[in-house]
């Protein structure tokens, strides 16, 4: 999947995650902040990489602001952001 434009999904509500993806020239850049970073930081990073790999995304700048979302919510938000970023136009 090619990231064609900037796109977002999710909110900053408690138990949600805000995801923003944008095109990147060389590789995957992950920028993660989380209120449960100490407890689940590594898990969340692994989830992000897994979803990017599932959609075969090679080049992306992805920013995630996590407010304690569970894993399925994180996956859903990333997938939505990616699909929005894949479409051309507004």
């Amino acid at each position, binding site marked *: 999947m090619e990231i064609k434009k900037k796109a977002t999904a999710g909110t900053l509500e*408690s*138990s949600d995650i805000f995801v923003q993806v944008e095109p990147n020239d060389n590789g995957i850049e992950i920028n993660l902040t989380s209120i*449960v970073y*100490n407890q*689940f930081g590594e898990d969340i990073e692994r989830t992000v990489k897994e979803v990017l790999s599932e959609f075969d995304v090679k080049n992306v700048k992805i920013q995630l602001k996590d*407010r304690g979302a*569970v894993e399925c919510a994180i996956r859903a938000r990333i997938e939505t952001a990616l699909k929005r970023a894949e479409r051309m136009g507004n």
Partner: protein
Amino acid sequence: MNKVVKSIKEAITLCGLKDGMRISFHHHLRNGDHVINMVMEEIANMGYKDLTVNASSVFDIHAPLVTHIKNNVVTGLEVNYMGGAVGREISSGIMQKPVDFRSHGGRPSDIETGRTPIDIAFIAAPSSDNMGNCSGKYGKSACGSLGYAFVDAMNAKKVVVITDNLVEYPLYDFSISETYVDYVVCVDKIGDPTGIVSGTTKITRDPVGLMMASYATKVIQSSGLLKDGFSFQTGAGGASLAVAKYLKDLMLKENIKGSFGMGGITSYLVDMLEAGCFETLMDVQCFDLRAVQSIRDNPRHREVTASHYASPTAKSAIVDNLDVVILGATQIDTDFNVNVHTDSNGFIMGGSGGHSDTAAGAKLTMIVAPLTRARLSIVVDKVLCVSTPGNTVDVLVTQRGIAVNPKRGELKERLQASGLPVIDIHDLKNIAEGITGVPKEIKLGSRTVANVIYRDGTIIDTIKNTL
């Protein structure tokens, strides 16, 4: 004789403040309080150092305390509750000496027995006359009960009343009497009314919260305690208030006449009093405008002192006659120990208040909390801080089930017989972690930043610095 002095500065001078002394404050003005900041700023400007501040609670509005700590104006801190703004700094290790946390009952006990003698008490009073007869029921900064402040007034060597509503002598409906007061200062504003009391406290509309409240009410109904003479305390959180509302409907339906409602009083407990669910309200602190109005106008709504509320060394205290208390938790472990001092990362953001006092006294101590909050289970193997010992906690109510302390076998049978979803607390933890995943353990430092002093005077736990 004239007790009215021109300024806080003059009162401080006349009281003979010296470096190293212990000064005290009460927290009825909550997050609207200006008095601690006004007094501490004056003290700092006058060049004093090395003071111990004994305050029944410290809120986020008191963040300027952090500067006074960093400048060594304040080198000792004793509180029953501390909001996150100051708590975060304390957790990061800005103070040499650990903070001493007590409970709402332990604090007055230690002041009365001389363990923490107060040199100067500053009483924030929404109304006072020129001799210091003062009350929280009247004035633009009205807060209702002054329950926590009595022990300060009655035991401090010097007592300064700070008011923004100086009335003609005598203020007949006084709470604290002039016999204890040395000086009276009138200032423009002792606080911000919007931070002192909420306009309205509202029950939750969140279906999870309502479900927990419904379970909690059924637990009370099934416990055998809900009969004539019933007594009850609940907090001001949205789900706790929903319990009060459900309980009121149930008591009216079953025609049960309770004896008293206690604690921080909200409009929901006032509703219960006015509907005849209770004979009286015993009020150590008002949480909303309706409660302030009720304590002013309704003689059955009584102001009580912190000692009367919860002191372990009083000849008796109200908590010892309490049937049911509903409490919150940031964490509860599989031994039913409860943490209300720190968040899941170990930062200080609360304190016992009356948590451990009421848990020790009540016949049924119920923790009501959602099973998970933002990907963290409320049930853990070991709480980061023991605020209230598990042997005083009877039931945990969550939306996913109700765990009963194994020590309360008979209660468990009653709840099961009523068809309530009783579940082992270990199973609750497993359900939670099935949703959230298993969290990595939090690493804390080795320095003690706070002692948690239980109501019997023992240090029940210490809080370590965050990394």
